[in-house]
């Protein structure tokens, strides 16, 4: 153990274990989290090559291998609680994202919430057994948060009782969804629904995109990886061009909105239903801000405790750089922010769980405020965390620039939170709308 860091720990004025319990939400939570983490740490199947030393293709392959192993082992251990699944994956994936993330984060939850009973009986077993590996294709090359601007069309043909899915322009090609490029064989595609000559806005359709045995793209499907990015090297973010692809009427998710065999359209009971999912995802992202910050300031503060440099008093030994006021002024506000956002993340999660029961019971009264708050806090915390991670990286000098520090990875894996699930400026303006209305 480095003597400097040992000395630091001896100076502490509080019991670290107690604070860990508070951050976990109780001693039992800490115990269980560590049990789950040790399952991964002691599992030889999760031995891996350092991703920094691998090519893009090798990184993707290693991520798919780990995803496949996680699925089997989580079942084998009977881990069902969402928090515990999250702990398991988090330590297995380290600072990187999993290739099949959207299967779990979007595809399965959408099936659970938007299939009618017949569809649920067909699709959920297929998805849960990974015969069907799916993604969620909403964003387009030329269109993002403004959903009404999406161009992909689903036109109903009553003669054959099929929908024809089409990408009418280059800008309408689906773009970004994780797992779309090489991994998935189905996608839930968000498209403008046309029936009997009328457009009824965005609806969700299950579209087969690859053969379930050969994994070859199906006729009319042009699919692939969008190429190297700032980070997310483990994930095949993809593109999807639909060339008049026909799918049966039953592939439109019909728990709420419906299209009858003759093409008659039935409206959903409430347009607020999709807000619930958005609030959920944005609440999770607030927690991500806290976790990324915690990592970044753990690295930079521990390193600042062991790094010695230049002098405060002439002739005296080089001090720890953490003794410089400027270093403290860089890092301690970030540390405080990490704690602040950890508590906000806990609050958002508890609030969402508290009112999601009301939402299911049809009481939407608190949803507008929570929707506005979650949008704003998602933007506020991710913007702040994004620049704070950069402060941590720079505070480690040149070594912060080396991939060995993990700070570049933490930064490039975190920064997309400022643009995905709603670009931050748009999020802030959504909150402003509520504020001005209030």
């Amino acid at each position, binding site marked *: *153990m*480095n003597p400097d*860091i040992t000395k*630091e*720990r001896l*100076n*502490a*004025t509080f*019991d*670290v274990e107690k604070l*860990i319990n508070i*951050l976990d939400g109780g001693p039992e939570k*800490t115990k269980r989290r560590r049990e789950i*983490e040790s399952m991964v*740490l002691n599992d030889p199947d999760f031995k891996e090559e*350092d991703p920094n*030393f691998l090519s893009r293709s090798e990184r993707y392959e290693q991520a798919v291998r780990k995803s496949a192993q996680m699925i089997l082992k989580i079942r084998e251990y009977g881990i069902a609680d969402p928090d515990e699944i999250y702990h398991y994956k988090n*330590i297995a994936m380290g*600072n990187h994202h999993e290739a099949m993330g959207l299967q779990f984060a979007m595809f399965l939850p959408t099936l659970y919430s938007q299939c009618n009973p017949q569809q649920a009986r067909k699709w959920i077993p297929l998805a849960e057994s990974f015969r069907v590996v799916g993604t969620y294709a909403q964003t387009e090359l030329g269109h993002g948060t403004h959903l009404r601007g999406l161009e992909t069309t689903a036109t109903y043909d009553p003669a054959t009782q099929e929908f024809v899915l089409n990408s009418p322009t280059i800008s309408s090609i689906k773009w970004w969804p994780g797992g779309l490029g090489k991994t998935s064989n189905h996608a839930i595609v968000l498209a403008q629904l046309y029936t009997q000559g009328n457009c009824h806005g965005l609806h969700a359709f299950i579209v087969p995109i690859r053969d379930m045995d050969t994994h070859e793209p199906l006729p009319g499907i042009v699919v692939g990886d969008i190429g190297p990015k700032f980070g997310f090297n483990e994930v095949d973010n993809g593109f999807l061009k639909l060339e008049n692809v026909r799918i049966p009427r039953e592939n439109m998710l019909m728990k709420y909105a419906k299209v009858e065999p003759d093409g008659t359209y039935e409206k959903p009971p409430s347009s607020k239903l999709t807000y619930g999912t958005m609030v959920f995802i944005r609440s999770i992202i607030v927690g991500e801000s806290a976790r990324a910050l*915690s*990592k970044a*300031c*753990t*690295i*930079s503060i*521990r*390193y*600042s*405790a062991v790094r010695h440099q230049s002098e405060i008093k002439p002739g005296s030994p080089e001090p720890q750089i*953490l003794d410089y*006021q400027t270093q*403290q*002024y860089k890092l*301690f506000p970030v*540390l405080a*922010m*990490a*704690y*602040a*956002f950890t*508590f*906000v993340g806990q609050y958002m999660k508890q609030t969402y769980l508290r009112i999601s029961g009301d939402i299911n019971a049809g009481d939407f009264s*608190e949803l507008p*405020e929570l929707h506005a708050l979650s949008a*704003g*806090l998602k*933007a*506020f*915390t991710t913007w702040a965390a994004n620049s704070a991670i950069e402060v941590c990286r720079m505070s480690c000098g040149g070594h912060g620039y*080396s991939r*060995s*520090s993990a700070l570049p990875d933490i930064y490039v894996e975190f920064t997309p939170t400022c643009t995905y699930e709603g670009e931050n400026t748009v999020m*802030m*303006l959504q*909150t*402003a709308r*509520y*504020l001005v*209305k*209030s």
Partner: protein
Amino acid sequence: YKQAKAGQRLSGIVSYLNEAEHRRVQVQPVAARPPVVDINDLAGLVEIYKLRASYLVELAAKSIQQELQRRKSQEDAWNNSAIELVRASDAHCHYVVVKLFTEKLGEIGDTAIHSVTSTLALLYTLHGITTNSGDFLQAGLLTVPQMMQISARIKELLCQLRPNAVALVDSFDLHDKKLNSVLGRYDGNVYEHMFDWARRSPLNATEVHESFHKYLKPLRSKL
């Protein structure tokens, strides 16, 4: 803001807009007499974050109204006020964060932990004021001398936190495998592991990289 202005009673976290409206009706305007602020009193500081938020919401709403008076459409008025609107949301969210942080302290029973997390909360709150000082000064919520006090207080808080810095990041309980960082290793043995890591770089698989034979050596023979 509109509902509050129309005298409607608001519920939830935005109810502070009612208070702002109520205060506006009082004789002394907000900017005339800044509230007396104890810069060590978190509850009082949360209060001025709230006033800052309501001030910026009002600024944004007024900007929209001015645009509308210039016969702009509602949409254009909104777009021409977007900068103020984003700042208002930012201030609203900042207020929510300091409020929740302060409330969380009330749940912490252990005195030593309560003390160190209170120091963190105070640092976060005061640092937020100094990095957004223009708002607080412009809204008349703080004076320049108070700002100077706050800057001095932040320096004290840095020294107060210094002994617990490593313990506070240890409390995130991030296993080395999860962190995957040579600089952030729990044992602090950074340099030997940094050297080991570098030596495993694929570029070091051979002592002499093939590019030497392919390009550098031939280059010499040509010069």
